[in-house]
Every structure is written in structure tokens, then in C-alpha cells.
């Protein structure tokens, strides 16, 4: 029965391609948040490169979070979600399909853009590489955990702010390991431990979060 999740995945990618502005908004947000810090702090390269890991990761976190509300909202309001819930398919698989599509549309562009912003922050080359690697390993966890928050806040008033309150505390481990990896490589240490913890965290969320999201969707649609 894996055709259904492929269908959902393709459909979501197709929808994103027909609404390209949504992708652009996330990316633009990431860009503008990351560009505000030098304006607030000053153009000193040494200072910038020391805050770069944290700033870039926080910016990626916020950009990812902003796009979360869209993950299920339109499916919820047009009734597609009901159809998914009563389909004779394992719901967690459909959730994974949706999260994967969401990550490709909203997460991957940020990962690809990050090194360019890293350059603006005077990050050395190997740190840039670690930055991309850490984002690549960490952002899927953000989408997976964020999906729980997105599912819980469906049809709730003020869901945009609420989702931040629910999801950001859960993002803290990703932030610590992700930014830590970049900082470690800046200080000439091996980022391996950070990266493997990040990967472990992502894997754990891949195993657990879809079930929680599926349960949350059933609650929200009820």
C-alpha cells in the first residue's frame, strides 16, 4: 500500500510548484532575519563569525517554524484531511509523505542558501561545510517535530503564535547540537559528536513523531 503515500507526496510537491510564492516567503524570511543581526551588532568579522552558528541556526529554526502552519491547514479546511483519515492507509506513512514534501519545499532551500549567508558572516570554509551538514541532518527533525505542533493547533484561534510556544522548546536540542557542531569546527574541534547526536535525534523523531502527529490529526479533525 505504499502508492498512497507516494501520491500524497507528489501532490504536495505539485501544489507547492503551483504556489511558488510560499516557498519564496520562507526563504526570504530566513534571509532577512539573518541579515538583521549584522545591522544590530556591527560589521566586525570576528564578532560575526563567533555568533554565526547560533544566529544562522536560530534563523533557520524560525523560518521553518513560520512555514509549519501551512503543513496541514489547507488540507484541513478543504476536507482533504478527512479523506486521508478515513482512507484504508496507515496514517503515519501519509504524515511522513507530507512532512517530507514540506521539508523539500521549505527546509532544503534554507539548507542550500545557508552557506551563502555563512559567507556574509565570515565563516571559514570547513565551518561552512559543517553548517550545511548540520542543517541537512537537523532540519528534518524540525519538520517532523513541527508537524506535531501543526497538527495540534489545526483549527485553533491564533494558531500561528501558539505553534511557536508549543514547538520552539522542543527544538532546543536540535539548536544546541546544530549550532554546537559549527562552533566546534570553528574552534578546531571535531564536530563529529554533535553531528551524530543530531542524526540520532532526527532518527528518533522520524520513528516517534509521525505517530504523535497522526494521533494529533485525529484529535483535531474530530
Amino acid at each position, binding site marked *: 500500500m505504499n502508492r498512497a503515500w507516494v501520491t500524497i507526496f507528489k501532490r504536495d510537491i505539485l501544489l507547492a510548484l503551483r504556489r511558488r510564492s510560499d516557498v519564496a516567503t520562507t526563504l526570504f524570511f530566513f534571509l532577512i532575519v539573518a541579515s538583521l543581526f549584522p545591522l544590530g551588532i556591527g560589521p566586525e568579522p570576528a564578532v560575526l563569525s563567533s555568533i554565526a552558528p547560533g544566529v544562522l541556526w536560530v534563523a533557520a529554526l524560525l523560518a521553518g517554524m513560520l512555514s509549519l502552519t501551512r503543513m496541514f491547514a489547507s488540507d484541513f479546511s478543504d476536507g482533504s484531511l478527512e479523506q486521508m483519515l478515513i482512507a484504508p492507509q496507515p496514517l503515519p506513512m501519509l504524515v511522513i509523505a507530507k512532512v517530507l514534501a514540506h521539508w523539500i519545499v521549505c527546509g532544503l532551500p534554507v539548507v542550500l542558501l545557508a552557506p551563502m549567508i555563512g559567507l556574509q558572516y565570515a565563516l571559514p570554509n570547513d565551518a561552512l561545510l559543517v553548517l550545511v551538514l548540520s542543517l541537512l541532518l537537523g532540519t528534518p527533525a524540525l519538520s517532523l517535530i513541527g508537524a506535531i505542533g501543526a497538527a495540534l*493547533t489545526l483549527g485553533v484561534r491564533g494558531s500561528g503564535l*501558539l505553534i511557536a*510556544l508549543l514547538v520552539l*522548546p522542543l527544538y*532546543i536540542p536540535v539548536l544546541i547540537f546544530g549550532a554546537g557542531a559549527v562552533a566546534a569546527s570553528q574552534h578546531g574541534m571535531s564536530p563529529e559528536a554533535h553531528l551524530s*547526536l543530531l542524526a540520532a535525534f532526527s532518527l528518533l523523531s522520524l520513528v516517534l513523531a509521525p505517530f504523535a502527529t497522526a494521533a*494529533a490529526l485525529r*484529535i483535531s479533525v474530530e
Partner: protein
Amino acid sequence: MNINWFKYSSPQTFYPLAGRMIPWFAWAASIFAVIGLYISFFIAPTDFQQGEAYRIIFVHVPAAWMSMFIYMVMAGWAALGLSLNARLPAMMAQALAPTGAIFTLLALVTGSFWGKPMWGAWWVWDARLTSELILLFLYLGFIALQSSIDDPRKADKAGALLALVGVVNVPIIYFSVKWWNTLHQGSTISMGAAPKMVTTMLLGMLLMALAFWMYTIAVALMRVRCIMLERERASDWVKEQALSVGGNT
């Protein structure tokens, strides 16, 4: 799971039962608090390093313990409520959250009042204080989610699921914050440097923790009664209850 359990779990029977239990827990809380305070202030010796300021730990540590313990209990009720699709456990979870949040906030404030005279700073990014802060965020998220969903049954379930997700994450968050803290040893201040424990100190903290625990039960029962009254406003038993209480309208 037997019939009896179901009987006591219906709001109608639980409401008066809780009402009878509250005074007992309230008295237990007061007794433990009196003994605990007496030990904290009159028996426990002065700490030779920190002087009298260390006495703040007699509220700080028990409050921190309770803040974590209540979250676990809340998640336990939440799991029970989700798996049985029952109302009472979900209401208990909801009733515990504000008290848990208050203890978390107290732990944070008293921690910072302990830190100021000891280390000269109101706030240090120490692993425990930071985790406590994140725990506060988790409580606030739970309360915010529950209060923004209008349908109580849906709010119960959504809140319960969030509590479960939170409780799975708490150890991971704690571990990662600890890791972060040891990596950034620039400021080598640790709140963990509690004074060398004398047995009486430990006893004082335990008694205070017991007092807080009993207090929590009493307050949670009070709150669960309020929630029942508010939710079942239209039902007959609430009307009977309201008419039998009397008082001014």
C-alpha cells in the same frame, strides 16, 4: 479496570469525594510545612561557606523537585486519559498544570534570589536553571493549547498528547542543555554547588517537599472541582450542588 473505578471517576461522584479529601491534604500540607520550616530555620546549622543565604534552598529545591514531579504526574494522567478515553484523568492533568507552572516559576525566582548573593548575578545560564526555564515553557504551552481550544473534549485530548510529547522530550532537552553547559565552561558557575548536606538540611528539604506535595494534591482537587462545575454547568448534579450550597447570588 473494574466497575468501581468507573463509578468513582464520574464527576458526579468524584466531586463530593474530592471535597471530603481536600481538608485532609490541606492539614497534612500545613503540618509538614510547620515542621519543615522549623527545621529549616531553627535546627539546620548555618552553612560555613554560604552563611544564612543558603536557607533559600529549603524552598528552591523542593519547588524545583515538585515542578518536575508534577509534569511527570500530569503526563501520567494524560496517558491514562488518552488510553481510556476518560474524562477525569484529563481533567486532573489540566488541574495540575497551573500549579506545576507556579512551582516552576517559584524555583526560577528563588533560584535567582539565591544566585544573586552567592555569585553576584541574578541569572546564570546554568544547566538546571536553563532546564527549569524550558520546563516553564512546556507548562505554558500546555496551558495555552488547552485554553485556546473551545471544545473541552478536544482540548483534553490535544493537551494530553502534548504532555506526552513533552515528557518524552524532557530528558533529551535536559541532556542537551547539560551538554551545552559543559561545552561553554567560560562561566564556571554551577548552581549545583549546594552546601555540604547535613542530615538536618536534607530532612528540612524533604519535609518541605512533602508539604508542597500535599498542597499540590489539595489545590489540584480544588481546581478539578472548579473544572467539573464549569464544564457540566447544565447537568442536574451541578444544579443540585449549587442549590444545596446556598449563599448569596
